[in-house]
């Protein structure tokens, strides 16, 4: 009996091992519907050297990245994750414009581009080519036409994350190397939410990721590129410096040099390895398992990388608008926030620089409070309109003393007195995403700072899944702390957030004058005049304290110091915008 049992146990163990082995082969072609044949990718195993010296010799680098992707067609709702851009799309799918380390647009696959109130005219570079499974195919206007047709929302079945801008184009035509996109004519009443038309101010963002129309025509747009960036036959396709040679779900990507890119990459291969935990990422770069960290989660655990020999740590203020919204609508528990003087007292009572220094410590590195609600401090058109409300405890206290009764006699960190103003106590609920430790710390600091001037903050953290849905978007809050993320720093995304009755104006701020200026800016083709319109609106919003900007959350990268050419970027591209320039120090 026993001998039989142990034999059976041994057989079971072998069966389990074999099952594990079979199941663990993550690169088997996914058989789900509509995906073009992906088998060639699955077979393209990477033989990446395991030592830094070996990788240098083979002109290869491995970077760590925290999130896996759901697919590489980033225009779809399923897959519109920044991670997808980092580990493949930014390097593979290029277009008319790219964004540099200063956060500015520059021409990429086009040699000229001009926009006016009629439309946009592009001239495609003569040396712009697709790599299609080893074949060289010219980028043509047909690719622009295909991209527009798929992204403008007219194909209702396309599950797009956004049609912004493309739905304002009425037609796209091409002749030779010239592409002409013509804006839709607006009716007498101007554009509406149901009928977007006319000039799109953030026009440089359009066609920034071109789709190869010649290779994808006839395929279901919702099903392409689920596990590859490839043509209908599963062959890799690219118009960027690299092509996606292999993707292993849960593990990462292998990008290989595209020999037909107009500016050939200096490296032969870049691998992105998925390491979801930022502490593990730190150990991985210390131990030479990876050569770089692509935008790791920003936190104090990254601090040791500043002094790790052979590692360069870099951070730039990213396009993250970390801010406090004060509810002016009917669903606030306390109507006092509608009073401008109360909003002034709150902002004057918050030491934003102190928050930055406390939260980020040695990683704060010259990070200053953000003083605009429409532009970022790193942009040339930035104006510090909110600087007039920089921390001034005495001034805040004086305002409260003027309008309220029963508060402390002087600013005092230990006071328990709370002002009563127009019959309402100066007590406000403060909400944030409970799982976010940075915001929990921010709340604690703000609570202490406001307590000392007689304003009571009641901490009300909400779980992530209800924070936006049941509270922020419904306007059910007094004060909330969260961030708006901008892909490219353009203010057009703020239109629906700050204008009267905007779709995402959850805090119910309304200034007709500011709304009109923003609407003007949305339709202004001249960049200087456009910036003036948006800054005009910002000045009004600052005067009325539409929001409390806190700071731009830093966007970090870390890489081996002998990997040259790496440059950080405040937008969603992070360091991936110029991978063709990366090279090992000889």
């Amino acid at each position, binding site marked *: 009996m026993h001998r039989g049992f142990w034999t059976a146990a041994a057989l079971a163990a072998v069966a389990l091992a074999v099952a594990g082995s079979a199941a663990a082969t993550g690169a088997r072609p996914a058989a789900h519907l509509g995906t073009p044949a992906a088998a060639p990718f699955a077979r393209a195993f990477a033989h990446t050297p395991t030592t830094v010296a070996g990788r240098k010799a083979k002109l290869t680098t491995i970077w760590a990245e925290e999130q896996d992707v759901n697919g590489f067609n980033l225009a779809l709702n399923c897959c519109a994750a920044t991670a997808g851009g980092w580990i493949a799309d930014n390097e593979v799918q290029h277009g008319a414009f790219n964004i540099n380390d200063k956060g500015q647009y520059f021409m990429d696959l086009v040699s000229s581009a001009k926009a006016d109130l009629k439309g946009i005219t592009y001239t495609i570079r003569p040396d712009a080519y697709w790599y299609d499974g080893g074949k060289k195919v010219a980028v043509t206007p047909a690719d622009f036409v295909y991209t527009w047709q798929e992204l403008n929302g007219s194909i209702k079945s396309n599950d797009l994350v956004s049609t912004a801008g493309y739905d304002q184009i009425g037609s796209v035509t091409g002749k030779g190397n010239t592409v002409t996109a013509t804006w839709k004519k607006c009716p007498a009443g101007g554009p509406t939410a149901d009928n977007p038309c006319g000039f799109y101010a953030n026009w440089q963002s359009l066609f920034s990721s071109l789709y190869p129309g010649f290779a994808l025509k006839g395929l279901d747009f919702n099903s392409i590129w689920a596990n590859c960036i490839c043509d209908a036959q599963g062959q890799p396709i690219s118009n960027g410096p690299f092509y996606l040679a292999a993707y292993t*779900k849960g593990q990462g990507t292998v990008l290989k040099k595209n020999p037909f890119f107009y500016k050939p990459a200096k490296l032969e291969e870049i691998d992105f390895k998925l390491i979801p935990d930022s502490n593990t990422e730190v150990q991985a770069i210390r*131990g030479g398992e990876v050569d770089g960290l692509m935008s790791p989660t920003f936190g104090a655990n990254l601090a040791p990388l500043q002094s790790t020999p052979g590692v360069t740590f870099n951070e730039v203020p990213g396009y993250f608008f970390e801010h406090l919204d004060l509810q002016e609508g009917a669903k606030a528990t306390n109507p006092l926030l509608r009073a401008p003087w109360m909003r002034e007292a709150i902002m004057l009572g918050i030491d934003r620089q102190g928050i930055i220094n406390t939260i980020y410590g040695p990683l704060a590195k010259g990070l200053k409070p953000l003083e605009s609600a429409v532009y970022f401090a790193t942009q040339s058109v930035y104006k510090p309109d909110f600087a007039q409300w920089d921390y001034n405890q005495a001034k805040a206290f004086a305002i409260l003393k003027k309008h309220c009764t029963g508060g402390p006699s002087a600013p005092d960190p230990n006071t328990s007195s709370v002002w009563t103003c127009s019959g309402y106590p100066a007590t406000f609920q403060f909400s944030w995403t409970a799982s976010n430790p940075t915001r929990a710390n921010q709340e604690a600091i703000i609570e202490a700072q406001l307590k000392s001037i007689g304003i009571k903050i009641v901490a009300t953290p909400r779980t992530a899944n209800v924070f936006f849905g049941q509270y922020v978007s419904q306007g059910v809050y007094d004060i909330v702390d969260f961030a708006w993320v901008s892909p490219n720093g353009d203010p057009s995304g703020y239109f629906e957030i700050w204008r009267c009755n905007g779709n995402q104006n959850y805090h119910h701020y309304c200034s007709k004058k500011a709304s009109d200026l923003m609407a003007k800016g949305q339709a202004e083709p001249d960049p200087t005049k456009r910036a003036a319109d948006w800054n005009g609106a910002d000045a009004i919003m600052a005067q009325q304290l539409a929001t409390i900007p806190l700071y731009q959350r830093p966007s970090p990268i870390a890489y081996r110091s002998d990997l040259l050419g790496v440059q950080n970027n405040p937008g969603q591209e992070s360091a991936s915008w110029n991978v063709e320039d990366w090279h090992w120090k000889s």
Partner: protein
Amino acid sequence: MLNYALRRILYGVPVLILSTFLSFCFISLAGDPRQNLLANPNLSRVHYHALYFKYHLNASIPVRYWYWLEDVFTHRLGRSLLTSQPIWPDLVRVLGHTLQIVILADGLALVLGIAVGVLSAVKQYSLFDYVFTTISFLGFAMPTFWLALLLQVLFTNIYLRWNVRIFYTSGLNSGVSADTWSLDRLQHIALPALTLAIISFALYSRFVRAAMLDVIGSDYVRTARAKGIPERLVIGRHVLRNALIPLVTVAALNLSGLLGGAIITETVFSIDGMGYYFVTRLGQLDLYAVMAYLAVTAFIIILFNLLADLVYGLLDPRIRYD
């Protein structure tokens, strides 16, 4: 025994249905996954509302559970609520990775645990016994995350100091490859397996020691010794074999628990396994992915419970199945 097995399988069905239904209710009540989408400034209202109907989010929880159940059988656990991707291939992949680590960890823990347990029992109250008793209690007491981080830092520092790569500290392979069984894969899964093995070793060694001491004092062992059978044979043939019988149950239940995913270990070592899959999907409130994970885990636990009972009966002739 066949009747007993069939009856147990039939009992397992309502248990599985009840456990999945309760899980479905709790996760559904935790919040509306669509609401996270509202934070996306580019989300179209049309799409936002379309999600309601596409995933039957407008229906009551029992009705949605029924739709989910339908998906389990007709579409192999259905598709992710957030990504619309099929769930089954992902689960198979992560289960495979977890299986590799768990087999290695449990194998190691069993071999060491049995060896140490036997020696501790035979040499009761010796220095060896005291040392390994202490180690076992340390294994029980050490928080997994701490042990995992400790191993990670230790092996990184060994590499930095002596430039010797013994084990890797992250992922399943160097670079990105699909190699399943290779030295490189072994070097990658060694530390997570070691972390799990140390904890299981503590359990097994204490269990074997106690079981051995129980059997050593039995009349039939005394009889065997009186008959002049060499001590090595008494221990190996009479004591150990009988002491190992209850270990089967413990090992089977422990293995099924580990197959559900070592959440902390897999997170620390960035392993694309069951535990990590569960944590990320739960964080995103991806209801159908979480349900698929729970259903598979519940199935594994029920299956291993049944197997443990059946094997126990096979090994111990005193057990009879009615």
